């Protein structure tokens, strides 16, 4: 039989899900539900003699203010707007255009070559920054028209662009990993290192898949007939185009991994570097600075809006005994520790159809963290596993942000159903990566372990 506080916990989760489907902003749904259920609980405690665990009076709102202050004084998250700024500036810098122009000429002559070029650029972008929206939009606008003109299957082309653009959230630097590191109290640098190999592995899977699929199915990604021959000059020009992003990757990831800088310092320097690249390419102007500034405010704000809503939601859940209720449920599952982790990942995967990574991380991680810690798993391994799983949330319909961005900029003849069909193999590859990381924790733990050897 459920206790009153447990019924409140369930009612709160259900109301939240119901409310967001009305189209009301997620941040305000989280904050509003928290305030509403605080009132219900306080009232029930006062007048109906409910056992509401620790939620018994108005002081809960004082605690909420404290938690807002906790976010403000959390200097680890300073890196977040900086990486957002960097991503938006890089989008404007002209670096990707140069890469794409060269890759098209160099690789476009082979079957599936354009798709390969997209994935390679996707990986380079991912390792230099990590704003998924910006990456997908940029890759789509630069490559979709050319791929379709060359006779690529619409779904295949869409799948390649959407999934390559999504790599940025997994391959460090990543705002998702920064937020998760903060939630689980682990070091950002170690988490970045842990995610690097799984991220690159996933990119490699895409490459292998493209080569195999393009070879087996001739019509999927045909080669063109009329490209000029490869010249030394083209090869050099391509190499030259790769230099700026590689320098940026070295400046940001290299300085974190090799021990020159904190993630915050690296993010600020990276943002500065992206601005310099834009200036070198003649793309920097007051208008661009102003626009990047405004978009940084809006992107940062919608993330932190959900942050504040989720921190209120989490504290009300906690005061209602939600943590203990959920961990009791999970630990009561008739599986071993591994089975419990897989259950958590499966719930995250399902939630990913409707919610995006941010809500899932902010709502689920505080609830499952104590369970995972109690089971004795390495937190870095678990977070990376969770992060690889959440890759799918960008690609699974109906709510998948990479799909939306792609639909927004893809040529008119590409329908949302082409896109849905096209991402299926990539979602399967992501699930394969989840299984591999689950089975071989060394994929995550090896690199951070190497860095400890003096």
């Amino acid at each position, binding site marked *: 039989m459920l206790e009153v506080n447990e019924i409140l916990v369930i009612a709160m989760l259900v109301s939240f899900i119901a409310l967001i489907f009305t189209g009301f902003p997620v941040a305000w749904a989280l904050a509003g539900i928290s305030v509403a259920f605080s009132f219900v609980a306080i009232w029930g405690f006062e007048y109906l003699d409910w056992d509401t665990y620790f939620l018994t009076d108005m002081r809960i709102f004082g*605690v909420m203010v*404290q938690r807002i202050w*906790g976010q403000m004084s959390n200097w*680890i998250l300073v890196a977040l707007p900086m990486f957002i700024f960097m991503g938006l500036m890089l989008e404007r810098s002209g670096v990707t255009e140069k890469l794409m122009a060269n890759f098209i000429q160099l690789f476009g002559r082979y079957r599936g070559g354009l798709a390969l070029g997209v994935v390679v650029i996707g990986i380079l972008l991912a390792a230099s920054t990590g704003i998924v929206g910006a990456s997908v939009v940029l890759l789509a606008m630069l490559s979709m028209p050319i791929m379709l003109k060359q006779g690529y299957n619409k779904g295949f082309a869409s799948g390649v662009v959407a999934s390559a653009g999504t790599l940025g959230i997994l391959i460090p630097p990543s705002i998702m990993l920064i937020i998760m590191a903060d939630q689980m109290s*682990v*070091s950002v*640098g170690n988490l970045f290192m842990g995610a690097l190999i799984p991220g690159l592995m996933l990119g490699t899977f895409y490459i292998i898949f493209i080569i195999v699929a393009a070879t087996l199915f001739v019509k999927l990604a045909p080669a063109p007939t009329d490209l000029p021959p490869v010249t030394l000059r083209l090869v050099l020009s391509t190499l030259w185009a790769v230099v700026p992003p590689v320098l940026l990757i070295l400046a940001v990831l290299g300085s974190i991994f090799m021990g020159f800088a904190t993630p915050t310092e690296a993010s600020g320097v990276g943002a500065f570097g992206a601005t310099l690249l834009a200036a070198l390419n003649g793309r920097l102007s007051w208008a661009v600075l102003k626009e990047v500034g405004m978009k940084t405010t809006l992107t940062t704000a919608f993330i932190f809006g959900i942050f504040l809503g989720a921190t209120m939601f989490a*504290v009300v859940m*906690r005061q209602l005994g939600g943590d203990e209720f959920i961990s009791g449920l999970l630990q009561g599952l008739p599986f071993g520790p591994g089975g419990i982790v897989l259950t958590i990942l499966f719930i995250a995967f399902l939630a990913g159809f409707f919610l995006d990574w941010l809500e899932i991380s902010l709502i689920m991680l505080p609830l499952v963290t104590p369970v995972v810690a109690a089971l004795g798993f390495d937190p870095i391994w678990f977070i990376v596993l969770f992060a690889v799983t959440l890759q799918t949330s960008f690609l699974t319909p109906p709510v998948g942000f990479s799909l939306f961005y792609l639909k927004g900029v893809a040529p008119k003849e590409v329908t949302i159903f082409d896109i849905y069909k096209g991402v299926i193999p990539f979602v399967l590859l992501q699930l394969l990566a989840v299984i591999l990381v689950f089975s071989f924790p060394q994929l995550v733990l090896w690199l951070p372990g190497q860095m400890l050897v003096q």
Partner: protein
Amino acid sequence: LDRVRWQIPMSFASTLTALGDTMPWVADQLRAVSDGAIDLRVAEPGALVPALSIFENVADGNIDAGYSWMGYEWGTVPAAALFGATPFGLESVEFLAWMTHHGGQELLEETFHPYNVHPILCGTISPETAGWFRQEMNTVEDLQGLRFRAAGVGGEIFAEFGMSVTLLPGGELYQALETGTLDGTEFSLPTVDEQLGFYQVADYLYLPGWHQPSTNQYLYVNLDVWNGLNDQTRAIIEMTCMAGNAYAIARAEALQGAVITSFEERGTNVRTYSDEQIAAFYEATQAVMARNSERDEMFGKVYASMMEFQAELRPWKEQGYLPRDWQSRIED
């Protein structure tokens, strides 16, 4: 007996020996002796309120009680630094003596009741390590320009030597040392430092912990809440915290010897500061203490009381006990 049901947010994780696991032990004992009537539930750092905001939350009445090291409060209550840890100050047993027999408790209440907080000493532990460094510190000049993590009034003293002092939370220190963001850090007991893995990323461990001869943690109770309890309940809580002090001292002392040996076995260079270095630290401490005593009346009053007791105790301490290194002396 009152029914008491409080959440106790802590500023340290419950996994850290003596530093973090004393309060969970006290909570278990309270449940046992009160047959479940006094039910305190500890909350991990940040789960309820930010780890370094526990005092202000208790003061503002957002929460009934919380558990923290008092040095974190010195931005608000300067004298809190002394009750938390005094450089070249009282050791754990001496601190207990001062608190119970030399007016410490009265001064504690005089300091904190104006903030509507009633602190109960609930876990005093052995000296901290004096610092983990990536390089050797042969003279105090070697400290110049280093980036160092330190908390409380100790931080101000380190700053006297030209160090740039920050207050990073425990969880970030490993990475910061590893990446060279920090050149050195102090954090806590050798066992706690081991749990945080400093020995993997810094080659030199310096002792003794002159900046923190004892580390004192308190159960902060909102004063209105405290006044609302009956005498029996208060006595049970106070007695159990006193037992917590004994438990914490025992636990902290029990484990440090073995871990120091294990550091040496794992290649850490365990060093002690020279007499000259210690003298320089002491001189700087006196300057900083004088400055703070002048700046804040309560700070001056508490410091004077502690120093008076330390002076009074000196003949006994120096003659009543064997010297700490008597074994080495005889062997030589």
